């Protein structure tokens, strides 16, 4: 590729963000070059500054951020020197953006096709009629169902995967030279992710559009990008073409990213007399009048981890709500150590409540933001174990040590003064404080970066052996299942489709749905998607 093919050059880009009154650098001198029709993958953990860089490529800084240094040159236009209206003229027309959550990024008040047409009409590229027929054409190319009608729906009437494709179509509306994809598939289920990935890849190839593809998922970026740039805390770690990067990373940080995928714990042998700690028996439950769980049964034995796997809407969280008593089932029951629990948590004894604890997905909303760590952790110990004064203080400190946080440093902090991983550790400590036999972990790692998630998994593992805990581990991520589970329960649309030990589950033959799930997990192979799609087409015909 020659220099005259260069579409975008970024040199020494510095971006500052404001917290309270002070500005601090969040992007610290990043260079970037993008040729026409090329796809660049930006990868890094949260806080790496990848989205910020992506937006800066449009000459855009979010509220509370400012571009403080460097050059941004798009096709001969200096974006930093350009006036706001010149930049506005580029956006949507020559540089388009595809956001992480299409459901949140489509305006709920307008129909899809109106939102599609807005940029072409406002930028004077097309008239209304032309834009509409163009939209239908692109919807068809994006393999959306009923492409002629789907545009006349409101966003809430269209599923997540379809919305993401509609958004990509919308980005294509003015046939831009560059599209910024900001984690477009992160919020999707694995099976949906494949459809969206392939649709995006096709359309970018068809129109020979250059793209910056931002993600934290290596396996995904491997399918999409020609080159990959790894970022850490606003600085470049390394950059190479995709295959080189995958096969031969040079930096330690990159290697550590790669390594996470390989953490796995050996399956634990069953313990005890065979009485399960928790036994879910023929549970059917409903929200309102629609049944969402159908005859669900499984057991969880002491010191074992049962992973409940499924995509969104499969009923895995609902099962947890039934066990905790938040959602009394229509039929069926939950046994605890062989005894039936009252189906409504309000009727359970304090002892019964103590024995089963829960750790939530979003540590942000699971911890009262106005309470200090001392009270957050100490409260269950005070309530259930009657500890007070010095004993409570000691116990709280012990718990903090257990979750590997320095007590003196953390005991008087508020949740807002902690990082995401630390908050999740507090959630774990709070559950431990009750000294339970059984803990429900509801997607505890899915909001975390991979390295942090790994730390949490290791901690949970350690605590399990130390306190003989039984875990019910709710997740949609098969990699997590592989790392931590002893047994697996696969759910789909409120029904258990398959269950067994981990080794059984990951060995063929599979239930067809399990097979689909397993095969949809992206692999660290640049050809994986191509191969998979070929295989699927082959089996279909």
């Amino acid at each position, binding site marked *: 590729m020659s220099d005259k093919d260069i579409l975008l050059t970024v040199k020494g880009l510095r971006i500052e963000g404001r917290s309270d009154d002070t500005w601090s650098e969040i992007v610290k001198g990043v260079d970037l070059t993008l040729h026409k029709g090329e796809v660049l993958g930006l990868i890094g953990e949260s806080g790496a500054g990848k989205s910020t860089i992506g937006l800066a490529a449009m000459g855009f800084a979010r509220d*509370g951020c400012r571009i403080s240094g460097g050059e941004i040159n798009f096709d001969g236009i200096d974006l930093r020197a350009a006036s706001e209206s010149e930049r506005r003229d580029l956006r949507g027309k020559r540089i388009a953006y595809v956001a992480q959550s299409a459901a949140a990024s489509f305006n709920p008040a307008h129909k899809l096709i109106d939102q599609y047409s807005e940029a072409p009409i406002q930028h004077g590229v097309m008239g209304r009629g032309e834009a509409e027929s163009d939209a239908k054409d692109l919807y068809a190319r994006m393999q959306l169902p009923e492409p002629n009608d789907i545009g006349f729906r409101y966003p809430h009437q269209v599923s997540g995967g379809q919305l993401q494709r509609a958004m990509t179509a919308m980005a294509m509306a003015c046939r831009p030279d560059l599209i910024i994809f900001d984690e477009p598939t992160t919020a999707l289920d694995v099976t949906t992710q494949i459809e969206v990935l392939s649709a995006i890849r096709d359309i970018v190839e068809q129109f020979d559009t250059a793209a910056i593809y931002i993600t934290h998922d290596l396996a995904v970026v491997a399918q999409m990008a020609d080159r990959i740039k790894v970022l850490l805390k606003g600085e470049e770690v390394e950059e190479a073409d995709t295959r080189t990067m995958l096969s031969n990373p040079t930096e330690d940080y990159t290697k550590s990213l790669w390594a996470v995928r390989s953490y796995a714990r050996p399956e634990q042998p069953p313990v005890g007399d065979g009485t399960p700690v928790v036994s879910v028996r023929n549970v059917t439950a409903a929200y309102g009048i629609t049944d969402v769980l159908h005859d669900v049964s499984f057991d969880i034995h002491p010191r074992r981890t049962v992973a409940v796997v499924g995509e969104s809407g499969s009923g895995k969280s609902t099962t947890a709500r039934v066990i905790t008593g938040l959602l009394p089932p229509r039929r069926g029951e939950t046994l605890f150590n062989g005894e039936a629990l009252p189906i409504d948590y309000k009727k359970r004894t*304090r002892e019964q409540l103590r024995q089963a604890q829960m750790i939530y997905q979003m540590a942000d909303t*699971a911890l*009262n933001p106005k309470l200090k760590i001392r009270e957050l952790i100490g409260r*269950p110990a005070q309530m259930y174990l009657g500890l007070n004064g010095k004993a409570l203080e000691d116990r709280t400190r012990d718990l903090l040590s257990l979750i590997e946080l320095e007590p003196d440093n953390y005991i008087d902090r508020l949740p807002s003064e902690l990082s995401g991983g630390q908050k999740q550790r507090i959630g774990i400590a709070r559950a431990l404080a009750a000294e339970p036999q059984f803990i429900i972990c509801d997607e505890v790692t899915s909001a975390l970066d991979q390295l942090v998630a790994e730390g949490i998994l290791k901690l949970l593992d350690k605590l399990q052996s130390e306190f003989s805990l039984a875990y019910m581990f709710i997740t949609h991520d098969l990699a997590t299942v592989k790392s931590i589970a002893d047994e697996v329960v696969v759910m789909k649309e409120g029904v258990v489709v398959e269950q067994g030990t981990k080794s059984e589950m990951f060995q063929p033959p599979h239930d067809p749905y399990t097979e689909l799930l397993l095969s949809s997990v992206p692999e660290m192979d640049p050809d994986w998607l191509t191969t998979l799609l070929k295989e699927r087409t082959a089996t279909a015909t």
Partner: protein
Amino acid sequence: MGFFTGLFWLAVAIIAAMAAGWVFRQAAIAVSPKGVAKELRTAPLTASFGMLMIILYILAAFFAPVIAPFSETEIVGREYQAWDNVHLLGTDNLGRDMMSRLIYAARNTVGIAFITTALAFLLGSVLGLLAAVVGGWVDQLLSRAVDVLMAIPALIFALLLLTIIGTSVINMILVIALIDSTRVFRLARAVAMNIVVMDYVEAARLRGESLWRLITREILPNAMAPLVAEFGLRFCFVFLTISALSFLGLGIQPPTADWGSMVKDNATLISFGDITPLLPAGAIALLTVSVNFVVDWQLHRASGLKE
């Protein structure tokens, strides 16, 4: 010409107010402990000015007998004397010193408004939070009852109740607090509704926490920001309600000075271009604006919006 001089003085007033706000902020940052100082640094000039004014009002209210040149009720001259060296702001319709009454009124008006608002909040927010947490028929019953009370125009309802039970200060406080508490209830319930669905509340429920603890430890601290903001607004509306009641003949007992009745007593002067009645009205307005500036700032911080 008049218009431009007016504009000029308006600009001067705004600049002076902002300068005062800036000086106050610098001073406050200097004397405050670190945590508070950090918060203060985020205060815009309007909010700093507001805080300065609120503090001045509180000081005036506390030290009224020390600051005021004359007594609250003493007749010290002819009625409607012009401003001079002795009576800085002239005298009122009975020949009492305007300045002294303004200062004493700060104590009465602010005091009564504060107690009333506090009571309204106690009643309204406790019931509102309860309705949100317990839900079900308790919520239905309370919400419907509040709907009914709100369907009766506030001023007329106050008039009716005060005529029945008599217009002592205590009764006035109780009646206005009752009527205001319906508005607080609605807000408290709405805010709490958003909080009760949070995971940490669910966790507390699953832990078996008592209703009282749920409300006071888990929900109330997180509902404080909007409630405090509403407190500021309600606090100001209480003055206005009192002054409207004074207008309709039911206000604070004379000779107690309060801004609302002072406006009413002197209002006819405005027809003759005398600005004396502007002073108590200005006192109400200045405090309201100040409180709202501070409330705005707090709300802005609570909303977490950066810019």
